[in-house]
């Protein structure tokens, strides 16, 4: 059980941006972007050594500004995007850019971890995803499972679809859409659906969730008042194409079937403050991770609406092996939707949670005070799902 203990890593700066290195499937690696107005911001590359339960970090300088959002390319593990705020002429503007990590970051940091802060390497800028006319960028999304050539940025009330050319050094807007309506509409977040051949996008603005068709750049559905207050995050079920989870300031996590948008399929109300982040496990979509400003991370088991509603199929010879325990199993199944664990290692608001891209049983959470916690799915549950 000792390896179930959380591994904690402290950053020097406050941070909100966390992502798993999507293209990396061997090492368990997370990227954290810091927020500091006074010092140079950094991107921490957190490598988790599963066997030794150790963390190795590398630091890259990100001197463009404080990082609000970070996302790794699905194709090239050295490429990532950040949304950062830039202060110019006493104006704060959030911009987005595509970066490449310097090739030697890995070796350099490992050799001399002590003076990594003294002489950190700088990210290599590939291109800006800038269009000042469109205003501040809320987030940048890579095409899921794509070739790392297509991006979407959400800026104010615009959806911009970018094509990266010339080995990502040039970005051009291939198409765009604008959300029109009364009042100041502003996208808060979005998610590119991995289904439907990556032609769909879901965005959140205020309390509404909208679906977009990227081919026609038009809205396909809109869940008005999806949450009582601001919608903070979205995630698509990786295995069920119409299912979507959302979370928001009403402390709720809601599950939607986008074909029936009048009512949520399910609603969880476990957090005692705003829920900032929601993530489906990439392989076992009954596992759901949520992070909230009540400083808690909750891992839930949503069996009833998962793609494996009754757990993994039990092999027949397993059944014949132990008849009496079969009765017991039958009594337990179907599994109830339940909270598996509440993680209270954080002292401040948790703004981001992320599953590891390499190990489906591992996840990281980041709180504002710069504390990164790596946790595992409890072993009992893991075996329950696997066996």
């Amino acid at each position, binding site marked *: 059980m000792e390896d179930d203990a959380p591994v904690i890593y402290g950053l020097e700066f406050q941070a909100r941006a966390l992502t798993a290195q999507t293209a990396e499937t061997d090492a368990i690696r997370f990227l954290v972007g810091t927020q500091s*107005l006074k*010092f140079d911001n950094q991107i921490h590359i957190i490598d988790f050594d599963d066997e030794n339960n150790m963390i190795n970090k590398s630091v890259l300088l990100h001197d463009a500004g404080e990082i609000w959002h970070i996302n790794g390319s699905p194709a090239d593990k050295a490429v990532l995007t950040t949304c950062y705020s830039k202060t110019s002429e*006493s104006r704060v503007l959030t911009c987005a850019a595509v970066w490449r990590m310097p090739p030697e970051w890995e070796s350099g940091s490992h050799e001399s971890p002590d003076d990594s802060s003294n002489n950190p390497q700088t990210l290599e800028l590939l291109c800006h995803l800038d269009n000042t006319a469109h205003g501040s960028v809320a987030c940048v999304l890579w095409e899921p499972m794509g070739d790392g050539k297509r991006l979407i940025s959400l800026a104010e009330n615009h959806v911009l679809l970018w094509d990266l050319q010339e080995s990502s050094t040039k970005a051009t807007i291939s198409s765009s859409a604008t959300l029109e309506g009364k009042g100041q509409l502003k996208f808060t977040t979005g998610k590119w659906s991995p289904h439907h051949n990556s032609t769909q996008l879901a965005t959140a603005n205020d309390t509404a969730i909208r679906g977009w068709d990227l081919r026609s750049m038009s809205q396909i559905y809109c869940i008005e008042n999806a949450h*009582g*207050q601001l919608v903070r995050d979205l995630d698509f079920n990786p295995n069920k194409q119409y299912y979507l989870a959302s979370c928001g300031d009403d402390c709720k996590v809601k599950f939607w079937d986008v074909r029936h948008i009048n009512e949520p399929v399910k609603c969880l109300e476990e957090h*005692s403050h705003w829920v900032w982040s929601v993530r489906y496990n990439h392989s076992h979509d009954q596992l759901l991770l949520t992070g909230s400003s009540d400083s808690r991370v909750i891992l839930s088991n949503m069996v009833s609406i998962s793609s494996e509603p009754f757990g993994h199929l039990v092999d027949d010879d397993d059944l014949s092996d132990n008849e009496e325990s079969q009765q017991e199993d039958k009594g337990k199944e179907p599994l109830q939707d339940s909270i598996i664990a509440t993680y209270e290692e954080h*002292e401040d*608001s948790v703004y981001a949670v992320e599953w590891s891209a390499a190990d489906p049983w591992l996840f990281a959470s980041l709180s504002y005070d710069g504390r990164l916690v790596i946790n595992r799915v409890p072993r009992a549950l893991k075996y329950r799902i696997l066996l």
Partner: protein
Amino acid sequence: MSSDTTPPDSDPKGQRRVHNMLKLYYGLNEEGKVADQAESLDPCDINGLHFDPDVYLNKLRKECSLGELMDHESCMVKQIRSLDSDMQTLVYENYNKFISATDTIRKMKNDFKKMEDEMDCLSANMTAITEFSARISGTLQDQHAQITKLSGVHTLLRKLQFLFELPARLNKCLELQAYAQAVSAHRRARCVLQQYSHMPSFRGIQDDCHVIMEQLAQQLRQKFRDGGSSAKDLSECVELLLQLDEPAEELCDKFLSHAQSRLEVDLQGLEAELKDSAVSDTGRGSVQKTSPGSNPVSPSSSSVNNPFLSPTAGTDILEFIDRGCNEFVSSLCLVIASYQELFINRPQEGEFASKNIPEMANGKLHVFVDTLAARYFSLVERRIQEEKGVSDNSLLVRALDRFHRRLQAISKLLPGSAVPSHGTEIVVRAARERIKQYLSALQTFYHDSLTDVRQALAAPRLAVGGASASGGGASSKDDTPSLPELLASLSNFILNQLKSVLASVHLFTAKDITFSNKPYFKGEFCSQGVREGLVVSFIKFICQSSRQYCESTGDRGGSTPPALLLLLSRLCLDYETSTISYILTLTDEQFLVQHHTPVTPVTALCAEAREAAQKLLNHYVKVQGLIISQMLRKSVETRDWVNTIEPRNVRAVMKRVVEDTTSIDVQVGLLYEEGVRKAHSSDSSKRTFSVYSSSRQQIRYAPSYTPSAPMDTNLLSNIHKLFSERIDIFSPVEFNKVSVLTGIIKISLKTFLECVRLRTFGRYGLQQIQVDCHYLQMYLWRFVSDENLVHFLLDEIVGSAAHRCLDPSPMEQSVIEVICERG
């Protein structure tokens, strides 16, 4: 001599032996006797049987002296002499008796001789008498036979005369309509006529009679068919026809069909009334189809019967049932009674009828009664269903009682009938229906009163706000009622309504109501119907609808006024503490509920109410917190914090927040107790805050300017967090004012914090936040249970703002204080 006194014994030994054996057998073994016998064996015993003179003499001689012998001898001589004289006397006496006997016999002989002679004489006389008598009877015999014959002829002639006169008599009877006489006359003659029908004269008479009787039967049938005849006439008719050998089955049918037609009229009258009332009640077109061929009598009869009723009012149910009872049920009873008289209870003398008539007739009667009663019941049920208004239950109960009571008559008349039990079922159904209606009425009442409360709240909310804004604590005692008054009146309204409903329902179980002692009304009605179906359901409904307020209001929180949530929460809490148990005790007492079936326990209801109260209060906190949060969030999000000017005032939003919090405080204080807070001194707020703002803040900010130790910025707050308890923002609150206010303030400040963290501040932006936080600190501490909580959260806000500040140079504490004092 001695042989005379002692009878000779041929075999004395053998006899004695037998004697002894018998004696032995019978247990008569007397000692004395045995001794005697033993003694008597002694040959020396002079009185014994075995006396041997020689032995005796020898013995005497051997034993006695001479003197003794002499004495003995003289004694012996004396004895012998006396014995001799005795014997002589006896012989003489016997002789005398013998002589007298011989005399008597001789005398008797003479007497018998005389008697024999007289007997001879008597027998001779008797013979003579017999002879004479025989002679007389022989002479009289002829005349006797003649007389007998003559008397026979006389009777026959009389009968014949009756027969000859019969047609005329029958005709006369027919004219006089004395049907009964005619029928009985004809019945007497019928057999004779039948027997002698081969003789032409008789045949003529028979034919005449037949014709007349046919006519009579015709007339009777006619009369029978005529509607107008009374039941008594009718029964007479039926009786006569039966005697005329009409088939009983046919008669039954006819009788019943006739009765049916009359009862139909009653039913149609009822139905018409039903339609009338339906039309006048609903005011729109009649729902029931009025068939064009309907009896034209019925509407007129109804209007004739109820001339005093205005047609628009419609008859009430009691009148309706009354009419049904008086007209339909009583005629039905009459029909049953006369039918039974005619066909069923007829004594078995009727050899002309086959034996199974009573059974057949009974069967027919049952079918008849059942069909008619079914129609009647359907009418009654329709009428009952129309009884929707719940204002006056006594009328319905009385009507049902009457209905039920009258049906008992049928059950008495017709013991096996299912009609009364059907009637009871109707009553039970009506009662059930009633309970449902009452429940829904209560529910609508509850909703209505809530709507009233809502409207009342809409006005005073402003007033309360104004009052609190102007001066603080005092609630506005204007013409609009305050929250506690509203609560009290709402609670009273509901309780009174419930009580009155209970009283109404209680009528069903009143002692003088006939159906109240039916098992349903004793058991199930009380426990399942009233307690569970009405009271418990209503309480559950209150909780349910309260919970709905928490859910349906949506998260925007706009639709339900928060004051209503607060009010309802208090209402539910009151229910939990006292009202529920009061109501249930009241119900149990009133209805003497014996719980055969499991019922909802009081504790479960209380728990439900408490849960509802908690939910409502939580929701209230959430809604109020949200309203304030929204203000704070807008104020943070819409401002350009980088390019703001130097703060001169507390922002208006903050004043608004404090005002709103104060008014919420007043509002909650009206309904909930103060609650406990952690000990603090009255002016502690300022001191702590000044410490916090001046010294601590400087400690916190100072190191942040030195780039060498960036971690230190977080150190203090982290340490603080380590030792302070985790704050659950949207956590359940307790049922008191302080807890509620703490909840609201927590939510608001946390929102403030999160919003601040999303922004970037310039120097003056930070200073403005400082001013705002100080202002909040000055006013908010008094509302919460633990002022450190406010300190901590405000600390966090200022700290976060400092972090998000491009040029963090905090304002002087004294300046902040001056600005805040200024207002």
